[in-house]
């Protein structure tokens, strides 16, 4: 899926996407995550690595989980936290995005964790600030820390993603998680299959490194991991599926399909689950589900990312990321 990008991302300073990040860089982050996971198990899970550094969480779009995860990670590293939250609509009340970014930067933030409902906004933000920028989800584009924590969680279970067959099921068209995961999973050697009705697939993806199926039942028995995406209820009102009921019938992971899924396969979901739509309650607690591991690992992974962008460390110099 690598098209020629004229302005490559700068992985040394920012984490704007999986695009532009090499396999070595991804593996380095996963390796470092192991060490931060160990800190999380200590009686006092806190280290002074980022003492005196300021992390600003800049969420133009509502989020509970990602914000909590990043802020927990920052606290465990002893960083100070600035919190900015605004519906992106507040920008239309006169202040430009650039003004907003310059104001936040002037509070002395060393890193801006940016979420926005529109693709590309973190990249634009990175052009207007000296701080590092982490993309915490931009519209339908990327959500790189989610992809990295998913890779970490799979690697934890299987040792390696090489040769794994991973199916991503659901609203891929509108999913930043899917875009980042397609890049990350395939970068680490997995074979990715996108599974959705055509209305929920992005147009013109012939050159993406993926297989595509419109029928979950056709491919489910070949999967080593089944990654379910959240199905938003408004997709129905936009005419993308006839009804949520029909979506659930054809693409939901229920007990019948769970039986078709190989015994040692894994079930993932980025949360928040739309229980009863893409996944039934019973399946959520299936022993093959590693959904809670994803949440736990999210904090360790984000500690690793913050540390790599901000921390001074003998082994892991900034320019290695």
């Amino acid at each position, binding site marked *: 899926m690598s098209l020629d990008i004229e302005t490559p991302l700068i992985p040394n300073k920012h984490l704007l996407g999986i695009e532009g990040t090499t396999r070595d860089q991804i593996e380095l982050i996963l390796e470092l995550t192991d060490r931060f996971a160990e800190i999380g198990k200590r009686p006092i899970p806190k280290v002074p690595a980022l003492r005196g550094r300021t992390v600003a969480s800049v969420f133009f779009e509502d989020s509970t989980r990602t914000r909590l995860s990043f802020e927990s990670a920052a606290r465990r590293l002893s960083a100070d936290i600035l919190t900015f939250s605004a519906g992106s609509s507040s920008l239309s009340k006169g202040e430009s995005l650039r003004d907003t970014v310059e104001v936040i930067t002037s509070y002395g933030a060393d890193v801006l964790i940016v979420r926005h409902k529109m693709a*590309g906004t973190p990249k634009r933000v990175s052009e207007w600030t000296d701080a590092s920028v982490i993309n915490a989800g931009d519209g339908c584009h990327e959500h790189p820390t989610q992809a990295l924590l998913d890779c970490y969680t799979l690697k934890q279970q299987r040792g390696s993603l090489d040769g794994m067959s991973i199916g991503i099921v659901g609203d891929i068209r509108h999913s*930043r998680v899917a875009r980042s995961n397609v890049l990350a999973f395939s970068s680490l050697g997995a074979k990715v299959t996108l599974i959705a009705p055509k209305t929920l697939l992005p*147009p013109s993806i012939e050159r993406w490194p993926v297989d595509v199926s419109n029928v979950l039942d056709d491919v489910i028995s070949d999967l080593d991991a089944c990654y379910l995406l959240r199905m938003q209820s408004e997709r129905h009102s936009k005419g993308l599926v006839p009804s949520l009921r029909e979506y659930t019938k054809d693409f939901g992971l229920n007990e019948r399909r769970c039986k078709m899924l190989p015994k040692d396969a894994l079930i993932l979901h980025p949360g928040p689950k739309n229980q009863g739509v893409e996944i039934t309650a019973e399946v959520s607690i299936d022993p093959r589900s590693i959904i809670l591991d994803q949440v736990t690992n999210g904090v360790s992974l984000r500690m690793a990312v913050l540390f790599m962008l901000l921390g001074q460390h003998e082994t892991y110099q900034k320019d290695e990321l």
Partner: protein
Amino acid sequence: MGIVLKGGKILDRKGERSLDVSIGSDGKILETGKKLNGDVEVDCSGCIITSGLVDLHVHLREPGDEEAETIETGARSGAMGGFTALVAMPNTEPTTDCLAVVEQVKTLGKKSSCEVIPSAAMTVGREGKEMVQMGELVDNGIGIFTDDGKGLQDPQLMRRLMEYSTGLESRLGRPIVLAQHCEVHELAEGGHMHEGEWSSFLGIPGQPAEAEELMVMRDIALSKMTGARIHFQHLSTLGSVQMVREAKAAGLPVTAEATTHHFTLTDSACSCYDPVFKVHPPLRTESDVKAVKEGLADGTIDAIATDHAPHSQHSKEMPFDQAPPGMLGLETALSLSLEHSGLDLPGVLNLLSWQPAKIAGIDNRHGMTVEEDNPANLCVVDLDETWTVSGKEMLSRSSNTPYEGWNLRGRVRHTINNGLLVVFDGESTK
């Protein structure tokens, strides 16, 4: 004795000749000849002297958004680009849909560096519901109607407009132009760039080529049904060009324009997420660019327009979806056309001056031959001068050019509007 353009080479549809041009105080060309003298002698050595350019598609933003542009600054920008006539789009605030606003635009235009030709909306408030008072506007000289910025969605209302307008042509004394911005709302809604490989890759919601093509197809059918003329604004897709080519071959009264950005830029430009590359219709693919150039070359497309759309800097320093669409064009159009359209010099002048003057119904004073008694609406171009595009240095009030830093060849040295030297030696005099 007034101004004399000395040492240049005239180029018009009659060909080339090395002659001086003397301009009278009545704004007309007094004579052309060797070694003419005058009170003001303007050096044109090494330059071509040709008719001023005519832009069928300009947003001057006044009244309503004077922060982005005024008629004065827009016309100055136009003159700097060699234009002597600008057709002003009616998506002002309030909408140019009635005599009062038309008169305001005309009045302000008279004081400016170009002739400003107001167009009027086809429907009240550009809402696509009711016809404007077309007869009254026609009786006051308005000949171009458009809801530009939006396509007219209702096919029945479009049909009625076509039928009604043909009956007014005798009152205007020339053909009425209904100019359509082809975009089917439901297919384009929520899309901020061309839908394709790049939009999927970038995660920016797209609008497909078919959003434009379906309306081109519909209006060709309605033109056939009613016999009315239709002018297609800013054609941007391979399919649109193909359909217009076929409609012309079938003898239908259709005309079309293409913008400079639709033959110089592609959707890949959006990969930097800078909304300076956001425009409607959106930048398309390589194959669409190729098709537009073929349309320019074979006469399918009659005119090069700019769709000059100034926007203040802060409105473009926004997330891609919240920034308004549109880019500057007046000061770069000629150079870009000379270098990137694939046309030869007379071909460029044909599409930037002679033909658009005809479509706008102003060919009695613009896009004419450089000869005695013709109104002196001229531009003098140094074809060899190279320059670097800088939004900050432009005369537009805004600086949203997508060509920042491009090195271009060919620049306007002087512009004469109605006998007045409005650009002299690359500087605006107004």
